[in-house]
């Protein structure tokens, strides 16, 4: 009976060998995968051992923590709720961060190499020093004015976005998306609260989680005329060059009319007046005359078709809020030749032209900054846990779509729009304000979107703000007038002149 007993011993040995091999598989080979599995709650517990860094703007705290008695030691809180949510995003217990919480996660969580000194001292002291802090470029006054004016707009519009940029640096002064959401339940330690809140938001047909300022493109309407004007000025036109206009313009299958009969009914109009009155026929004809390639290249020079732009800090340009690419569309027939009727419509920002509000603000900012388009950014400073500065934004030129002379002429044209044209609502007393309105047809029977892009110079001639306001489906006509009004108030606030 001994031989089978020995063999039974071998069987046990083999079974234990299998256990051992399997343990190696789990604890050595698969260990990292299991350690970081989202269902592994230990990951979160370790993460919440140290307080996450604060996010601030000016003197306002936008994201901070409260201590809890629970297993997760800190609860992330967002005191300003909806106002900043599209920018800040949120830090959920389970799953990926969103917004600036995601883009600056390595600083906020303390895992960044820049915070190595903190981690090293933690190792010796046994403390859990908090993560680094983020100072946003946002101007709280401008942001809150923008939020208030957008949400309490005079037309009862429920969807829209507003972006304000400092033209000389690219610092984003305000970035509002409406409707927004309260990030606090999403950051709840109670998994059910967080999941329910998320499910409710994701099911909302108004898409509150969508940042309409950067991540959504819509037809820009007459705002496109700024680009056509720039193309014309570069092609040698000047402010007083007469361009053909008229009350109706038939190009292929497209019929272009003006918004009102009294707008540019004559055969000729100067370029400046065409922009001031937002003459559709004039710009359609001008666009067709300049040609598809000129129109598309000018749009591209201003930032259309850019698929890689992200707005966060200026060092890690691969992180930050992803900016949807604005498009001119192909403007081509099926055989690739120029589709002139499409070109006529595209010159008015219709057809397949789509633009983000951020790009609208960047276009206005380029004009106000002598043709230099600064790379937009949201993070002004990164501070370590002791609030020592570890990064300060150093403004960078992103692209130079037009030279200073063209920019000067274009500026004068846009100032004329606000002075005596369609953008009068944007006026700020004492400031020199320029801009361009846009009213974009979108769907059959739907109210048009109202746009305004513009800029403001203060009394000293300093470009203080460039802005884009977009309101979706504005009822009651003159869709862009309300956008222009809000834009003026935002720029005034961005220049620290208060105003609600």
């Amino acid at each position: 009976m001994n031989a089978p007993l020995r063999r039974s011993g071998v069987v046990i040995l083999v079974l234990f060998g299998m256990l051992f091999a399997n343990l190696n598989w789990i604890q050595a080979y698969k260990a990292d995968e299991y350690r970081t599995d989202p269902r592994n709650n230990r990951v979160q517990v370790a993460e919440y051992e140290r307080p996450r860094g604060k996010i601030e703007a000016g003197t306002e705290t936008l994201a901070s923590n409260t201590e809890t008695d629970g297993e997760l030691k800190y609860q992330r809180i967002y005191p300003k709720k909806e106002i900043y949510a599209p920018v800040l995003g949120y830090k959920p217990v389970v799953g990926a961060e969103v917004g600036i919480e995601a883009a600056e996660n390595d600083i906020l969580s303390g895992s960044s190499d820049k915070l190595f000194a903190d981690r090293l001292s933690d190792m010796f002291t046994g403390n859990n020093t908090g993560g680094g802090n983020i100072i946003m470029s946002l101007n709280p006054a401008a942001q809150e004015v923008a939020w208030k004016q957008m949400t309490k707009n005079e037309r009862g519009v429920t969807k829209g976005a507003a972006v304000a940029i400092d033209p000389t640096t690219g610092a984003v002064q305000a970035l509002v998306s409406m409707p927004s959401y309260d990030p606090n339940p999403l950051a709840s330690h109670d998994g059910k609260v967080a999941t329910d809140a998320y499910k409710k938001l994701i099911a909302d047909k108004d898409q509150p989680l969508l940042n309409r300022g950067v991540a959504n493109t819509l037809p820009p309407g007459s705002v496109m005329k700024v680009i056509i004007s720039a193309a014309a000025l570069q092609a040698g036109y000047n402010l007083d060059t007469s361009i053909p206009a008229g009350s109706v313009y038939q190009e292929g299958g497209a019929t272009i009319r003006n918004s009102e009969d009294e707008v540019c009914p004559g055969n000729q109009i100067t370029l400046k007046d065409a922009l001031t009155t937002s003459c559709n026929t004039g710009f359609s004809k001008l666009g067709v005359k300049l040609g598809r390639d000129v129109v598309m290249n000018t749009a591209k020079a201003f930032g259309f078709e850019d698929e890689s732009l992200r707005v966060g800090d200026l060092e890690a340009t691969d992180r930050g809020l992803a900016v949807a690419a604005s498009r001119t569309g192909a403007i081509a027939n099926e055989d690739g030749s120029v589709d002139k009727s499409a070109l006529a419509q595209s010159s008015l920002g219709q057809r397949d032209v789509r633009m983000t509000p951020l790009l609208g603000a960047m276009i206005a900012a380029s004009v106000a900054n002598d043709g230099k388009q600064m790379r937009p950014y949201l993070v002004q400073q990164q501070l370590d846990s002791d609030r020592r500065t570890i990064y300060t934004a150093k403004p960078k030129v992103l692209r130079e779509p037009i030279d200073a002379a063209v920019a000067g002429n274009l500026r004068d044209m846009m100032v004329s729009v606000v002075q005596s044209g369609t953008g009068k609502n944007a006026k700020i007393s004492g400031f020199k304000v320029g801009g361009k309105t846009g009213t974009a047809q979108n769907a059959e029977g739907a109210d048009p979107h109202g746009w305004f892009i513009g800029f403001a110079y203060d009394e000293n001639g300093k470009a203080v703000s460039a802005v884009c306001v977009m309101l979706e489906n504005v009822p009651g006509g003159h869709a862009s007038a309300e956008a222009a009004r809000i834009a003026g108030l935002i720029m005034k606030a961005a220049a620290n002149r208060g105003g609600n």
Partner: protein
Amino acid sequence: MTASAVPAPTPASTGEMSRIRGLKTRRNAELGLLVFAMLLVAAFGATVEANQFDEIRPNFWVPAALIGLLFFGLHMVVRFTAPFADPVLLPSVALLNGIGVAFLRRLDLENAIANKLAVPGFFAETSGRQLAWTLLSLILAAVLLLLLRDHRVVSRYAYTLGLVGIVLMMIPAVLPASISEVNGAKLWIRLGSVSIQPGEFAKLALVSFFAYYLVRKREVLSLASHRVLGIDFPRGRDLGPVLTVWLFSLLVLVFEKDLGTALLYFGLFVVTLYVATERSSWLIIGLILFFGGVYVAYLLGDLVGGPFANFYDRAEVWLDPFSQANYERKSGNSFQLVQGLLGLGTGGLFGTGPGAGSPFKVPEVRTDFIFAGLGEEIGLFGLSALLIVYLLIVERGLHAALAVRDSFGKLVAGGLAFTLGLQVFVILGGITGLIPLTGQTTPFLSAGGSSLMANWLLIAMLLRISDAARRPATSGPERAGGGPKKAPTQLHGAMTEVIKP
């Protein structure tokens, strides 16, 4: 044979013999190993306190000393009743039992800290209860060693034990689920706050019965056969008991909803059969029957559901535990399994250190999943060490079976040691995802009295048989006088049936 037939030698004669024959009792080695095991347990306790309280309190050694004292008591009993017993068995089991109690105390401490309660006393909470169970188990083991001076005596009560085993096994299956069902497996008798797993005791009784039955039948089973395709197949009438046990274990599988117990009993029977007959055809038949039965149960679970559904769920979950569908499954999801695996993975090679992990993330960490909880804290290296300790116990048991001179002893020791190894494989394989998860306890580690008592009785039996194995053949005058002249069948402790053609 009676218990008094083989009296324990006096310590003096033991010492004399060790000098003369070179056969040492090795009791002092056992004591030394025991002290070493308790030092490891104390070190575990100290690390737990360092991680839980950020300081090692002056009385950290008390739990290790308390449980060490209990083992010392059993050691003294072994010293006087089974002086030649294997010296590695007791310290190895003591180490596992001690680590188990220390880990349960670690859980109690974390629980108390989390709920802002006072530090629990040494006799409080789960670890205190486990300490009490250990005391009871050791008393039972000592009583067994004291009363049963010769393991062959057991064979006299073989049929009684067989009946008792079957009854114990079947009780939970026939009881209403409200009394017998815990986590989907009907393995329990719950009376108020006390839960008993009768199946744990059944395996001891059944091993004894199988051993006796097979010793009697071994000639018949091994010699009378038909040869088909080069394999010797037994006669149909001899297959009867195997088929009975097979059906029986499948019934357990279906009605107690527990693959592990079924595998355990069936494996136990097939192995004792194989050892008794030395015929590998039994292994082949056994394996085919078992896996065939399991596969059919799986298919039935898919098609019919009902009593097979539980097993079907477990098998499905086992095939892909990490799929979100299985994780969120309505009945029998993989949450436990996944959390256990994540705990093990988090521990990695070296573990977080005793007291520094988060074992409460793993459900049932005090019982079925204690190995996963431990694995997070002691890592692959620690778990490998525990595996080796288990392996040592099993191989030492098999070694006793090899060395003991009577067939009954060989079968009992071999069967018990193999069952222990198989149980470790079934539960650890279950929680590591190697085989479908079943509700087995981890011997000596898990909280729970039934398992601890039954397994300590098993160890006492192995100690008794290893004592007989290592005892010099001439030690007792009674045996010296009768041994050579008696027929070999009597050495088996049971009659062997002759072949009736």
